[in-house]
């Protein structure tokens, strides 16, 4: 419906990450510490991000979209712990286990995170909807290349042009 791509970009070049982490805790900590240092989130962001992911997982099974796609997750937490509206892309070189958002009893191996910073749930278009639209409308071959990329620059420029 009104999910028009926002005019200001949801992505920043300096908050695109390629992570070597092998656990959810490690990748969350590395990214959250950097986001805090850069002033995008509050000090309590990491703690709340972890608690929320434990209770309400955010893994998304993309095999139902295309069997070749890797799974993704959309970690996020309450608006009060973030200072702006952003999507933070994180490529995981080592797949990490997340539980399925719509069926928390199911575990998924995830290799890309779209961390959502949303300080304004009511405003504009829905960020999660935009991420799903991006996944659904990007040609399969291009998306597969994107998900395999381990270059922050390549990830950033692809998202800038295709999201």
């Amino acid at each position, binding site marked *: 419906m009104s999910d028009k791509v926002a005019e200001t970009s949801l992505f920043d070049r300096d908050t695109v990450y390629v992570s070597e982490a092998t656990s959810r805790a490690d990748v969350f900590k590395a990214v959250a510490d950097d986001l805090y240092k850069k002033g995008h989130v509050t000090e309590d962001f990491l703690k709340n991000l972890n608690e929320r992911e434990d209770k*309400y997982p955010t893994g998304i099974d993309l095999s139902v979209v295309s069997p070749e796609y890797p799974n993704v997750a959309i970690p996020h937490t309450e608006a009060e712990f973030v200072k702006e509206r952003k999507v933070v892309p994180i490529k995981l070189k080592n797949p990490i286990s997340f539980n399925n958002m719509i069926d*928390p009893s199911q575990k998924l191996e995830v290799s890309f995170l779209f961390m959502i910073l949303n300080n304004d749930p009511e405003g504009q278009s829905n960020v*999660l909807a935009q991420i799903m639209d991006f996944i659904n409308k990007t040609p399969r071959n291009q998306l597969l290349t994107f998900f395999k990329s381990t270059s922050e620059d390549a990830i950033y420029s692809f998202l800038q042009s295709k999201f």
Partner: protein
Amino acid sequence: MIKMLTACGAGVNSSHQIKDAVEAEMKKRGYQVSVEAIQIKDLNPETMKGVQIFLPINKPDLSFDVTVPEIDAGAILYRMPAMAAPVYDKIEDTIKKNHLS
């Protein structure tokens, strides 16, 4: 106006997407529907008051009995018509069967 309620962990992304999608689709199908999006931790008999259909996303464990029809809405989050249509159909069936208005 038919009142529905959905809930997710943070109350920012998933539940709002369900709200927007269900309100838009049901309007298209000719029903006056209002969906409230809240955090799962705020679900209780009080917030369920007046709710005619509950639209959970992620099979939440609740400490109370939900006494209204429950329809799993998580598939809507994929924003693929083929995945969302069965959920909308179930909502419409429930509205008709229970004569909700």
